[in-house]
């Protein structure tokens, strides 16, 4: 009873604080009773990104006196499963996969968000974000903080301009551009897909973007939900479009064997060598954090970007997004205060300024983004009408973080053909 009462009191205090504050930060508005409490947060990002997250919650810590302890681990999702089974998960987990959230919610391990946080999501986010945080029982569990926009093609600005290249508006123009680059002696694409236990995920991003551009929103949803199997001709078509580029040694720096062994964060650096070894990187907005230091210091002048162009002009260029959602494994007022803080634009300010991060808040001040690039991303994200979440993240784990990663690698290295690849992925889909 006492616990429940204190939650209630905490929630009331929060609502009052949120209502009274207007544009001021929402975190509890100095209610002293949270001071000295601690919230543990677990996530998959480490190093620079972990430091930026700690910086982002510092305003919350200062305002409430709550100590937020972030613990990052590259194998976070596997670790979390062990911790949950052992009964000692972190208070808040930043889950990269909506499937993981649904899994834990159906096991009754998560606590649904209180109404005031859901109301805050409605007020601060564009359409779609609340739905991705909703489990099968119809309750909202997840809060999105930092998100990714994918399908962005980065290039070294100076070389691009010196050679007289222009950003392609259609897929055909892209192919023409690629051939021009080959003729000029540089392979167009920098690609790396190595990522530890998650090796292969950049392949899924490419396929998803091609699918979005060839089958549209409805077809994409059917494919992600499993209604359209991987053996369907529309999926085979997407893989063929991918292999036209990836399977051609001229188009990809180092060829397939180099691609599969090269870290996704290392690969784009080759574009900034002198002379560049390759020119184009199709990645999410977060990839700028992996660029060489001197490039990062001068992003706006050194890096240009265009959206991966449309394949079918009737469908256009949809936006693919992704992101970690914060979910609560415990029910304490300081945890809800933190999650509520994460739904407000203030939670994104410091990280926007630091760069390499993008936030979905409708009311955010774009001037906070330190670079012109980030500003462009945020603008297109906030204004996008056709937004879809990362499909692999929403598929069952056995496919989305299993065969959809591992089988195409075998296709790339030539140890199996396309039919076998798609057949194996389709066969691994849980019945």
């Amino acid at each position: 009873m006492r616990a429940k009462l204190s939650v209630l009191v905490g929630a009331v205090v929060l609502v009052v604080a949120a209502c009274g504050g207007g544009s001021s930060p929402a975190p509890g508005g100095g209610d002293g009773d949270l001071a000295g409490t601690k919230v543990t947060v677990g996530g998959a990002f480490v190093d620079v990104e972990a430091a930026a997250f700690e910086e982002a919650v510092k305003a919350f810590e200062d305002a409430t006196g709550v100590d937020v302890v972030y613990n990052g681990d590259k194998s976070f999702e596997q670790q979390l499963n062990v911790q949950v089974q052992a009964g000692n998960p972190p208070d808040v987990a930043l889950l990269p996969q909506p499937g993981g959230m649904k899994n834990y919610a159906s096991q009754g391990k998560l606590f649904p968000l209180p109404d005031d946080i859901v109301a805050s999501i409605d007020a601060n986010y564009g359409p779609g974000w609340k739905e991705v945080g909703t489990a099968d029982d119809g309750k909202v569990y997840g809060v999105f903080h930092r998100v990714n926009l994918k399908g962005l093609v980065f290039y070294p600005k100076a070389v691009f301009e010196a050679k007289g290249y222009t950003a392609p508006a259609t897929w055909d123009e892209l192919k023409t551009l690629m051939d021009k680059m080959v003729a000029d002696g540089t392979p167009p694409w920098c690609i790396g897909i190595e990522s530890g236990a998650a090796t292969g995920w950049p392949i899924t991003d490419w396929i998803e973007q091609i699918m979005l551009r060839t089958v549209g929103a409805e077809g994409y949803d059917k494919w992600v939900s499993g209604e359209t199997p991987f053996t369907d001709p529309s999926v085979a078509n997407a893989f063929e479009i991918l292999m036209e580029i990836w399977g051609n040694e001229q188009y990809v720096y180092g060829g397939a064997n180099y691609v599969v062994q090269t870290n996704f964060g290392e690969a784009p650096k080759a574009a900034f060598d002198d002379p560049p070894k390759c020119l184009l990187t199709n990645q999410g907005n977060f990839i700028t954090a992996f660029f060489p230091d001197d490039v990062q210091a001068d992003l706006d002048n050194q890096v240009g970007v265009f959206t991966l162009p449309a394949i079918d002009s009737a469908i256009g260029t949809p936006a693919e997004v992704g992101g970690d959602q914060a979910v609560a494994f415990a029910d304490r007022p300081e945890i809800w205060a933190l999650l509520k803080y994460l739904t407000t634009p203030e939670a994104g300010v410091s990280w926007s300024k630091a760069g390499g991060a993008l936030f979905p808040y409708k009311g955010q001040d774009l001037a906070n983004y330190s670079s012109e690039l980030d500003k462009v991303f945020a603008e297109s994200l906030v204004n996008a009408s056709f937004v879809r979440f990362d499909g692999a993240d929403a598929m069952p784990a056995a496919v989305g973080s299993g065969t959809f990663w591992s089988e195409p690698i075998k296709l790339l290295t030539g140890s199996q053909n396309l039919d076998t690849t798609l057949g194996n992925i389709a066969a691994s889909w849980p019945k």
Partner: protein
Amino acid sequence: MYQAVAEPPPPRGVGQVLATSVGRVLVSIFVPVVAFIVLWAGFLFLKDSGAPKAVIVLVAIVWGIGGVAMLYVVANWLTEKLPPAWYGRILPFVFVGPAIAILAFYLLVPAVLTGWGSLFDANGQEFVGLDNYVYSFSNPEMVTAIRNNVLWLVFGTLFSTGLGLAIAVLVERSRLDRLAKTLIFLPMAISFVGASVIWRFVYSFQPEGQPQVGLLNAILGSFGIAPVSWLTSEPLNTILLIVILIWGQTGFAMVIIGAALKGVPDEMLEAGRIDGAGEWQIFRKLIVPTIWPTIVTVATTIAILTLKIYDIVIAMTGGNFNTQVIATLMWKQAFTFFDAGRGSALAVILLVAVTPVIWYNLRQFRGRAI
């Protein structure tokens, strides 16, 4: 034992006898209960306490060591209360019992539960019989993993033990005995993950025309040969991963076998030489049979290691390029795909594969004089 010859107590009244025995029983119950409460309180403190880490560590050490000591003292004290004949009978169990109980709790119970869990579906809800085993032996990924594990078992064990034996025998006669042994033993000090980081640089591949950071490709390059993508060349890549294990384990085999060699009596070897045996004959017919139990122990230890190999594969290739082994697939099923059933089935398969080796090893131990 001297209680047995102690003077019998002077006869007393029935009421007195009853009172003392009731008192004794009460004390005998009271003491273990107090001991249990103390241990439980310690456990609760360790579980929920927000005390500083240093305090928790200190309490854990005192609680752990003190708790075990207390258990022994209390159990011993209890058995001493028993009649002398029973004291002798029960005492061994008092001392061996806790070890067996802990072993059962941490090894036997999980093993049985895993076996039981392998008969259920991904969420452990529905009984599916042997479906998970059928999957394990029919899935092409699994078949490759089993093939790879056999490669690990055969080449890893054979070369680690063989090289260890050869080096131990050859180096024993060298004046650089100690230096050579130290150098070969050094990799033992490196964890497999650490070793893998080192070997990634050996196998590293850069596109042709670029400077080769990888040792092997740099050597090839100096002869004008095009670089090879070692880790993606199947099935050579599995062999290349096994080389890392051999690099790490040869030192272990060498040191153990080397120690056994020192125990081979010189008189026997001399007698052999006087009888006209060649060095090769002495090695094969005298040295090897004498140290055979040691060779078997080393080989079985490495064999078990190869069967449950995991870290090298995960660190080098993540199980891609058809280098996966049973343990990496087990980890994937259980912790990436959240399929408890298939994960358990793979764990059981691993356990069954290791069992004959352990059994053989134990038999060797039993047959040996200590």
